[in-house]
């Protein structure tokens, strides 16, 4: 019985830690989707770029990935703004039969980023072997007679806590600062925002930059615990989508909850069903959310608020 509890709790802990990181990935995309209604299929590739930045900073200059949080996100912020201004905005203005050109555009951008990474960095798996990679806190260290063992991996936990910190900072930014409020206004009603003096064009550029910076931060937090290779972008793009849909398009709170739910769900699936089926679980949740809860978790939250 204790063994089952231990397995369950450990799986839950892994899930929550993973979920925190996932939330950060999802936040970037949900912001972009909410403000600009753009499906960004290059989200994962941007994360990949950030991870390479962190990798080289570590390998060449021995800069810890957590310190890279101060370097990579700002760089990706600039890259994001550049992409939005030079490539994505022009496409949005153009009149075409199908409005999905922008999605294909992001696919094109993703292809270029991924291929450039392969050319410059080869497709070898890379990692940042930090000293504390295998460190962990053990329950038995603190509770001598514990009936089961639980471990909190050091890098996982630090990454999680930093993710929480960044998410909180983002929340304050969106809720309290003028720019943040302008971004939210643009997401709710672009025309009304413009009429109230919000520079909508600038907000979009900033938002894409912000979304890129967030996913870059997630990259820095991931690299101590994961491998890096050029094509890892696509799976993270997919994860970002699942979280966005699960949480509700454009909802920050939803993305956070969506990330946590997905993290726990994947962890549970991996433990109890089997590693191979975990991606299916991811997609099954995705489709289920689309069909049964199209507004995502956010719509549940709204419903509760209204009935109050």
């Amino acid at each position: 019985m204790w063994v089952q509890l231990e397995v369950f709790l450990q799986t839950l802990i892994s899930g929550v830690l993973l979920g925190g990181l996932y939330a950060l990935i999802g936040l970037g995309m949900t912001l972009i989707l909410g403000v600009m209604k753009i499906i960004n299929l290059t989200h994962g590739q941007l994360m990949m770029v950030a991870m390479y930045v962190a990798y080289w900073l570590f390998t060449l200059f021995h800069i810890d990935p957590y310190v890279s949080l101060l370097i990579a996100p700002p760089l990706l912020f600039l890259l994001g703004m550049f992409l939005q201004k030079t490539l994505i905005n022009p496409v949005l203005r153009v009149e075409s039969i199908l409005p999905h050109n922008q999605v294909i555009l992001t696919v094109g951008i993703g292809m270029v980023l991924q291929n450039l990474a392969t050319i410059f960095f080869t497709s070898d798996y890379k990692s940042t072997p930090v000293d504390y990679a295998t460190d962990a806190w053990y329950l038995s260290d603190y509770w001598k007679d514990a009936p089961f063992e639980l471990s909190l991996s050091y890098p996982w936990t630090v990454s999680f806590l930093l993710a929480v910190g960044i998410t909180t900072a983002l929340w304050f930014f969106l809720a309290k600062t003028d720019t943040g409020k302008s971004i939210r206004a643009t997401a709710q009603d672009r025309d009304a925002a413009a009429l109230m003096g919000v520079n909508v064009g600038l907000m979009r550029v900033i938002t894409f930059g912000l979304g890129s910076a967030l996913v870059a931060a997630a990259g820095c937090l991931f690299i101590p615990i994961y491998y890096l290779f050029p094509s890892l972008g696509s799976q993270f793009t997919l994860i970002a989508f699942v979280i966005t849909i699960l949480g509700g398009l454009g909802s920050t709170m939803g993305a956070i909850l969506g990330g946590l739910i997905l993290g726990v769900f994947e962890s549970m699936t991996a433990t109890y069903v089997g590693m191979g089926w975990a991606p299916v679980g991811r997609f099954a949740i995705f489709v289920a959310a689309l069909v049964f809860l199209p507004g995502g978790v956010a719509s549940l939250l709204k419903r509760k608020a209204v009935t109050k």
Partner: protein
Amino acid sequence: MALLTVDKVSMFFGGLAALSNISFSVEQGEILALIGPNGAGKTTLFNVVNGFYKPSRGEVRFKDRTVSGLKPHQICRLGVARTFQVVKPLQRMSVLDNVIASAFLRSRTKAGAERRALEILEFTGLMEDRAMISKGLPLGKRKRLEIARALATEPELILLDESFAGLNPAELDVSIEIIKGIKKKGVTIMIIEHHMKVIMSISDRIVVLNYGQKIAEGTPAEISANPLVVEAYLGEAEGA
């Protein structure tokens, strides 16, 4: 004979009542205007009649048959056509093709649909523009195209949503003539409009909505003398 009956219809979105207990009928052959300040619920009511929303309470009956709960295309088949406030024709297709697309509802063959479409274009004064790509039409003609598309489905009741908004005086006259022509053909019309002069001149009866409730119903003369109606409109102007 009442062609359309709206019977104690209410529409709730979340906690908000967009329509409360609306009841009225549309008589066969008449032009009934639906007026009220912005946000009063007029388009919502159209959406309920047309089938886009199922009323939270009450029902809608067309020719004594309950239609609330049917899908829009089924309601159209039964004889109710509708235009939209924001006109969106098949932009990359010609005016003629636009009307043919609707005419297919009653004609199985392309030849039959085309014949019907040409008749309607003649009727709405768009015959000369029939080969023009609808994207290039000026607003007045686009609104007429919208009406033409609805007419092609051979309705008994046609719901016009702000067909006169944004038209200049010349276009206005043309459209008014078309509406009168539709009435002469025996088609019943329910129209949402803000253009008071137009409403007063062509409507047989008027229903006034405010904040989702029916506040008045009667002939144009009765309505213009009704203090509640005056207040509803003036009140909005003062508040603005």
